[in-house]
């Protein structure tokens, strides 16, 4: 496993209008590691995640200060192609959101957007992505059925396959298993372990156990600030700060 820094965040502030949602965040995310972002509701986890692929640009009245680099390049530089950035930094959301199309088309979507027309290449890539998302065996015989006929857990893995199809470097996951039952959750967690061989993963979760199980690094956010970050094992066995301890042991007022 390499130790290269993938994402580097320096003194990041983020504003929704006048409201400062993130304050002075500095944080390095390493290649092929899983980083978990934890913290109480409204502490800025999703906001931070969306800063990493500039999804916040889509919200009017927002403003960013500080620096975020991906592979040492400033993602907020004026010449950055945001569409290309979002190809490199894919995202999976809380609720599975497949398009009302076939399973095949859902996965092929991003490839088509990126100009892939060759049927054979499309087929190859769709299969590869579905395999990576551990869904292929379950859907290979009904690849042209509607994606909406899949179970919630399958839909979520389909969305992961869709994100993987465009061959991103990083996958952002915002509470990817919160709408799933324990078995589907287990599959997503197993998948994360597999995916980190090829991708860098940043996951937001409200489940301490999930963060503990899947991540290498855990970052605790509170009221827009990054309070503590460290090896997941250290954070969950002997965190340095009382605020972190209180949060992960469920003693938050």
């Amino acid at each position, binding site marked *: 496993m390499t130790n290269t820094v993938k994402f580097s965040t320096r003194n990041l502030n983020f504003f929704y209008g006048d409201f400062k949602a993130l304050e002075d965040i500095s944080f390095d995310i390493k290649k092929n590691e899983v980083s978990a972002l934890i913290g109480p509701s409204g502490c800025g986890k999703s906001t931070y995640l969306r800063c990493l692929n500039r999804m916040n640009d889509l919200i009017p009245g927002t403003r960013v200060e500080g620096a975020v680099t991906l592979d040492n390049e400033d993602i907020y530089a004026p010449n950055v192609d945001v569409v290309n950035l979002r190809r490199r930094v894919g995202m999976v959301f809380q609720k599975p959101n497949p398009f009302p199309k076939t399973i095949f088309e859902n996965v092929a979507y991003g490839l088509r957007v990126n100009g892939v027309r060759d049927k054979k290449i499309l087929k190859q890539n769709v299969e590869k992505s579905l395999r990576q998302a551990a869904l292929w065996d379950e859907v290979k015989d009904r690849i042209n059925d509607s994606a909406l006929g899949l179970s919630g857990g399958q839909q979520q893995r389909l969305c992961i396959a869709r994100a993987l199809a465009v061959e991103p470097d990083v996958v952002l996951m915002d509470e990817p298993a919160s709408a799933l039952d324990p078995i589907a959750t287990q599959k997503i967690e197993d998948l994360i372990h597999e995916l980190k061989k090829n991708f860098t993963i940043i996951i937001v979760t409200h489940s*301490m156990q999930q963060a503990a199980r899947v991540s290498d690094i855990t970052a605790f956010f509170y009221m827009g600030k990054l309070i503590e970050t460290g090896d997941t094992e250290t954070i*969950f066995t*002997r965190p340095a700060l009382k605020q972190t*301890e209180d949060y*992960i042991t*469920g*003693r938050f007022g």
Partner: protein
Amino acid sequence: MSERHHFIKELEDLKLTILNMAALSRQALKNANTAYLERNDTLAQEVIDGDRKINALELEVDAKSLKLLALEQPMAKDLRVILGTMKISNELERIADQAVNIAERTLFLSQYPPLEPVASLERLMETTDQMIDLAINAFLDENADQAIKIRHMDDMADQYTLEILQAMILYMVKSTPATEKRILNTRRSIQTIIISRCLERAADLATNVGEHVAFIVKGINIKHQKVDFKE
């Protein structure tokens, strides 16, 4: 996020069980010592009979801990408290076993006239008791620094044990040549050596308790470190 009142209450309850067990184990050892010094068979028998209660408490601690681990998925210090508690209850149960062992020797020794008193034995009893007391209070106050203090006292306990052994060897060597009496003297001496060995064991176990407390409080294992640790 809820404040987990229920869980916190159960953790407190677990700690209370440990304190209860600690009080019983310490008292068992004190009673065994008194029974030996005063040649009191009734008290020795009480120690032997009372061990069942301490064994039951150890099982209770295990069951409660297992339940909390399974149902509450504790993290960080909560997790350390539960792991530490399980280990401490095991040490306490073994301290009580040492008390039983001393009580059994006492039942044998009290049938015969007393040996010459050995000052180191009473000092060893005193030191071991203090170490157990310190360890219990360290647990109660979550004081990791006591572990070092207890470990220093353990060095004293080892020294006293050695002195007792030397005194007994001397006694066996110089005792009367008449065979019958010599065998009896040797037997009494060996029983006394075993008692000192039990006390020395109990002191080790108290040292372990101090180390588990340090683990609970600081999250570090100082068990096999020979150097003192600092904040």
